[in-house]
């Protein structure tokens, strides 16, 4: 064993490792959200009336709109990934910006929904129904907030020209995260608001 041989591995190999790490990370979050949905299921199965007749009803329109907002945001982000891969660099910054803006709109609409329901008298200490609603939507919103922060950072890097067709791993990783968060919202919308 003579001299040290530091040979760095090909970029693709390093990127796969990061990708695997992100997949496992999201697997953990999937288990946590899964457990929360399980909790929701158990609490709802026990309840005699769901929703309780004396509490304000959950709106369908605004959250439904929010679903579309998040879906559009994911689409914008995925477009950014596509354009990075095919080398159309000038379009990337704006696409990331659109994704970011839509994410922010989602959070804003969520806050509107919460404050209007709060004013109508729905608060967490009102029993299992509002407990589930606030716990799940707030916890999800925290994840959206983290994603929005990441998107802001990615946007900044894109406009500073830090990405190229060969180097855009962070965008791919956060895209995975963002799609996951969007998918969780989809399930949440169906199970909490619709059903």
């Amino acid at each position, binding site marked *: *064993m*003579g*001299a*040290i*041989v*530091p*040979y*760095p*591995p090909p970029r693709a*190999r390093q990127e*796969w*490792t990061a990708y*695997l*790490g992100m997949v*496992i*990370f999201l*697997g*953990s*979050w999937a*288990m*946590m959200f*899964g*457990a*929360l949905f*399980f*909790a929701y299921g*158990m*609490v709802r199965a*026990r*309840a*005699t*009336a769901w929703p*309780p007749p*004396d*509490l304000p009803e959950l709106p369908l329109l605004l959250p439904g709109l929010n679903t579309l907002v998040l879906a559009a945001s994911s689409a914008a982000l995925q477009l950014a990934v596509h354009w990075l891969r095919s080398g159309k660099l000038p379009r990337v910054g704006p696409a990331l910006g659109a994704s970011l803006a839509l994410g922010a709109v989602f959070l804003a609409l969520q806050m509107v929904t919460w404050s209007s329901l709060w004013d109508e008298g729905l*608060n*967490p*200490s*009102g*029993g*299992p*129904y*509002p*407990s*589930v609603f*606030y*716990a799940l939507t707030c*916890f999800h919103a925290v994840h959206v907030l983290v994603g929005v922060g990441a998107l802001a950072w990615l946007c900044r890097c894109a406009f500073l020209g830090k990405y190229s067709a060969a180097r855009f791993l962070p965008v791919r990783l956060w895209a995975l995260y963002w799609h996951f968060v969007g998918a969780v919202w989809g399930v949440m919308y169906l199970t909490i608001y619709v059903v």
Partner: protein
Amino acid sequence: MDLQHIHPEPTSFVRKHIFSTDHKVIAKQFLWAGLLFLAFGGALAMLIRWQWAFPGEPVPVVGPMLFQNSGGAITPSSYNAIFTMHGLIMIFFAITPIMIGAFGNFCIPLMIGARDMAFPTLNMLSFWTFVVSQLLVIVSFFVQLGSAAAGWTTYAPLSTQVGTPGLGQTLVVAAVFVTGVATIMGGINYVTTVVRLRAPGMTYMRMPATVWGLWLTAILNVLFVPVLGSAALLLILDRQFGTQFYIAGSSAVRGGGDPILFQHLFWIFGHPEVYILILPPWGFVTDLVSFFARKPAYWYKGSVMAMTAVSVLSAVVYGHHMFVTGMNPMLGQSFMTLTLIISVPAELLFLNWLHTIWKGSIRLTVPMLFALGTIFVFGLGGLTGLFLGTISTDLYLHDTMFVVGHFHLTMAAAAFLGSFAAIYFWFPKMFGRNMNQSLGKWHFWFSAIFITLVFCGQLVAGYAGHQRRLFDPYQYTFLQHLQPLNRWTSYFGFILAASQVTFVVNFFQSVFAGTKAEQNPWEIGTLEWTLPSPPVHHNFDVIPQVHRGPHEFSNPEVKKTLGRDWIGQDEELPKTGKAPAAPAAAAS
């Protein structure tokens, strides 16, 4: 040929010893932090044993300082906090950092031929996140109503504001959440590292059992600690924000929540957790009995499959903790069936260990003694599990000291002895020095004998119907005659605790002034023993090419050509340049 980038070695003191990204440094950090809290958890156990031996009497030496309002005697509320924190500290803040934090970090990259973990910065963050959780635990003892007191299992509604008001319980639940985050960070690292950074030729079946145990543990951690996270999150919401996930009975609003929900979420984590705590020792033992019997690990593939089967089944047996909650009998029946089935892979593992040592050339070194001790206590403890996994016998034994004896033997004793096996074994490589072997042997005999006596005492008490978590068991007429048994168990416990001084003295003395260790003092073929003791920052100058498994002992061809009973995983036999075993294709 794939190799790994070498990070430049850090130069500042802070980067070298405090915020280091070197897995070997982080391993030592986890080891120190874990050993400190092991002592803390052990001290709490001594308080429990004191109370059962001499109920209501002031605790000597520390009593007047700790229990000022009661003249030095333990009060019912402090007792509840003591047994709660004993359990939580031992599981999350002692055994986990020692076995998974320290040995996971140290062994995985070295044994698979990697230069570091896949995500070194994440590794560093996981240690410091863990430290934050330890600080939360310490703070919880100083708040007004004391620390958490609802049992380590933290069942609701007792653990909600209904049963346990105050900041202490909240802080501890938060500490558990934070340590869970640290564990997941570590788990992501371990899983990715094993998948992606194995040296060429290091197929999965050529990995040492230690790596298998730690890898399977990491997979279970990554999947099930989040479920604990959700249980803890909902509990904090119930405690601090007035939600009603777990509240029922007279405090319920609009029907309230479901206390059993907590038990489901907790045990879906909790049962895999006990396998998380035992898989690394199983891995160590599988390797160590082969290493020190100088024989290949018997049916290694079977052992690996058994460990994998146990991991897969671990989540579907959890209901055996809930047989008397009033669950649907058919559901109970399914859990019982699966629990009985999960005993089969464990049986297989035992048979393989016993066959490994049979017709070997056994070297009773300190690590080998601890490995054999682990087999002994886990055998005893595992067999007692049969009574608890069966519904009708569990109706009597549930929540008695029989359960406590069972899980202490399987989880505490086996992990305790297994951790020491690992410490004595890898100490030369970790610290570059030797531990005193005769002190080690004293440590082993005292620990193994007295740990067995203490927990057998608990099994006997439980058999007589003695419930757990009682401040004063002798309130019950049917338990009064057990006071001598409890007292003797306590004496054995005190001796067990006192005898740990043999380890403490040995460890400190060896770390700072032990004799210099050779490169391969145990004559083992796994990759870490090809490096200097301790290894340099980047581990391997050249990433090795692996030719065979880790248990190639007493191979006649090796004896003929090399004149010894072992051969390294990456060694080439001189004559033909090929390995005795057919080399597999490159890794992954």
